[in-house]
């Protein structure tokens, strides 16, 4: 009995010693690999046999086919390079990428989500390298519009988003907007809305005619970001929202955000959006819209292929112009950024690879697969119908600076804070004022600590 006890104290003592030696200093210290700062080159063929490990989340049909084609073309061009593609869903990538990057053997190329929670944390941890030197070689700055480059940029310490260092480039464009059912709008005798007032009038007409104005399902919590983002952008305008999300200026309790919250709660009270949306899945709501049971549905351009297939010429896409502005302002940006890790032993090959899969030829591959590229080739005329709506809107929004970032980029915890607050807002658990205070509490804590 006594011996048993003694050996246990021994075990505990040894394990404490082991654990302490493992964690002698603060967690995370000394784990980041040193950034290589040697000269950069475009030379791929001379790099010898290279296996490039690539982590992406291009799982959607069409996009994954485009990615496979591009990978095959790159290997055909450079037979000495073998691409080891690891692909997983966005949610899985978000949870596993941090662990992979901080391990001893990180992938060479990864798709990093923009904003503070992901890209900011990676830059801060020294896990992805600045691409400024490769930008000099491949001249991405003149290919991409300024607004898209900014989204993929951070300060060198990772603390200021849209800083001086470019950390990635993106393949696809994204705009969140309002899909509408042309048949229903014609039946109601209204035009596609281009402002918040028009949208509300159209929704009132639909409600009066016994048609659900807007299908909305929020059980997954993320659609709340799109709903609030679209309304807030149409009220506050692009400058105010950009400054707010980047932490430059403003507060979530500002009038525009309170009005946006009031508007959404009002829609919920009037039955403009699906009742009990917190228990309805995003896919069910979309199915409702596609079946012609609602006039509107808010989602991003990444659903273009699916909606077009389900509804054909009956579907349209629009974005809202704020009062006093002359071009639309809405949530959007670009697909995840293709970044090169600091741990990569072949940064030259990695940079050549991301250039190859993001350049103008790659954009054509994406269009062939019914997806919106981040930069639409100047000589391309979109097919009439939904594709033309989507491509034109994207062109208008990006060229006029009407793009506002996804609101969850604001702070590392903002995704949780915002999505759960929107659920409370639509279910009238909180007043619009209290809703904005919840957001501001998270925001001021983060901005204050920077």
């Amino acid at each position, binding site marked *: 009995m006594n*011996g048993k006890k*003694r*050996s246990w*104290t*021994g*075990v505990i*003592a*040894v*394990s*404490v010693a*082991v*654990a302490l030696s*493992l*964690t002698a200093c*603060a*967690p*995370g*210290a000394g784990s*980041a690999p040193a950034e290589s700062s040697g000269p950069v080159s475009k030379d791929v063929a001379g790099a010898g046999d290279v296996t490039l490990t690539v982590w992406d989340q291009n799982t959607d049909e069409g996009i994954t086919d485009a990615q496979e084609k591009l990978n095959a073309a790159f290997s055909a061009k450079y037979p000495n390079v073998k691409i080891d593609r690891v692909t997983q869903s966005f949610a899985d990538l*978000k*949870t596993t990428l*941090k*662990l992979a*990057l*901080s391990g001893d053997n990180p992938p060479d190329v990864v798709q990093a989500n923009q904003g503070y*929670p992901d890209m900011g*944390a*990676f830059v*801060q*941890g020294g*896990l992805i390298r600045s691409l400024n030197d490769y930008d000099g070689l491949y001249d991405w700055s003149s290919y991409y519009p300024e607004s898209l480059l900014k989204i993929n940029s951070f300060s060198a310490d*990772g603390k200021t988003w849209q800083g001086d260092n470019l950390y990635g480039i993106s393949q696809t464009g994204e705009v969140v907007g309002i899909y509408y059912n042309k048949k229903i709008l014609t039946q109601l005798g209204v035009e596609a809305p281009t402002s918040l007032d028009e949208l509300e009038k159209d929704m009132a007409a639909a409600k009066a005619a016994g048609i659900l104005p807007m299908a909305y399902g*929020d*059980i*997954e*919590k993320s659609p709340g970001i799109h709903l609030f983002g679209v309304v807030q952008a149409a009220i506050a305008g692009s400058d105010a929202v950009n400054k707010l999300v980047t932490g430059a200026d403003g507060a979530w309790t500002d009038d525009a955000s309170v009005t946006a919250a009031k508007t959404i709660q009002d829609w919920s009270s009037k039955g403009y959006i699906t*009742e*009990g*949306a*917190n*228990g*309805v*899945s995003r896919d*069910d709501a979309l199915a409702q819209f596609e079946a012609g049971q609602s006039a509107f549905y808010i989602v991003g351009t990444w659903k273009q292929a699916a909606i077009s297939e389900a509804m054909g010429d009956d579907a349209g896409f629009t974005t809202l112009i704020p009062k006093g502005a002359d071009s639309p302002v809405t949530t959007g940006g670009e697909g995840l950024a293709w970044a090169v890790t600091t741990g990569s032993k072949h940064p030259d090959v990695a940079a050549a690879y991301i250039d190859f899969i993001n350049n103008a030829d790659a954009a054509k591959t994406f269009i062939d697969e019914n997806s919106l590229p981040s930069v639409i080739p100047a000589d391309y005329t979109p097919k009439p119908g939904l594709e033309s709506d989507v491509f034109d809107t994207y062109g208008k929004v990006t060229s006029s600076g009407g793009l506002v970032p996804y609101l969850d980029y604001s702070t*590392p*915890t903002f*995704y*949780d804070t915002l*999505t*759960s*607050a929107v*659920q*409370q807002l639509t*279910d009238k*658990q909180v007043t619009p004022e209290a809703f904005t205070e919840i957001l501001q509490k998270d925001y001021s804590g983060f901005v204050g600590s920077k």
Partner: protein
Amino acid sequence: MTVTTRLRSGETRPAGAAPSRARRRRVASLKAFLYVAPALAFSLIFLIVPTLQTAWYSLYDWNGLSVATWAGVQNYIDIVQDEQLRDSFMHVGVLVVFYSFLPIAIALLLTMVISRAHALRGMSFFRTVLFLPQVIASVVIATTWLSIYSPNGLLNTLLRAIGLDSLTRVWLGDFNTALVSVGFVGTWLNVGLCLVLFLSGVGNVQPELFEAARLDGASGLQEFFGITLPALRGQITVALTLTVVSSLKTFDLVYITTRGGPGNSTSVPAFEAYNRAFNSGQVGSAASVAVVLTIGILLITALIGRLQPKDTE
């Protein structure tokens, strides 16, 4: 420490000298140690070290990537002060009622009925059906209930069919019903387990006892409280331990059905720990939640263990 001294004394033993009795015992204990060494190494590497590491992380403010900053016990203070974390522990308290107390009460009631109907036909069939939820993967269970609770799901359809339209609602999306709805899945899940445990316990009671009670004119209720319940004390303890622990570490049901929503109304500590560690970059806070949860489970299990009758085992 004692392990290393023992090793050293073994090495310095003069060659050829007859080992004293004490030394022989030490050698024997060293041998014993070698036998358990593989298992010990395994649990050291995969259980004890990670546990201690988690405790260590919980004292830091860390996003999982950059260098952490010392936070002391701030993460633990936050568990009490942060409304979201505090609520998650409250929610799990509610879930204990649904995962543990309710199933045990229902299973006892069923035991009382079933044990009196000795020759119930097809008993083994019903027992299998009731135990089935325990065998099905929890992801399948959660997905099934997601469909049952959906706006046009089985539950609402049933309510409409019997004219209770006013009661229909989006069960998992309603702030008032989401937690209870998740809890009820746990009740459904655990009744079978408890019932099978209790029935096997009743099977061990000598039939003469029941016969004697009946000859003395005991009612069903008296029989239950006089014989069945005391005989089941051991099984009830086991059922309590299993179900309370399963409720405290609930993750899968919440992850699949609600992701903690609507708002935070169904968030639980295990979900918060996962979400903070892997999604929102609050590794220190996640670790502190995990530590508190572990200690809570250990304490509660020890308390329940005290109910175990001393004579058995």
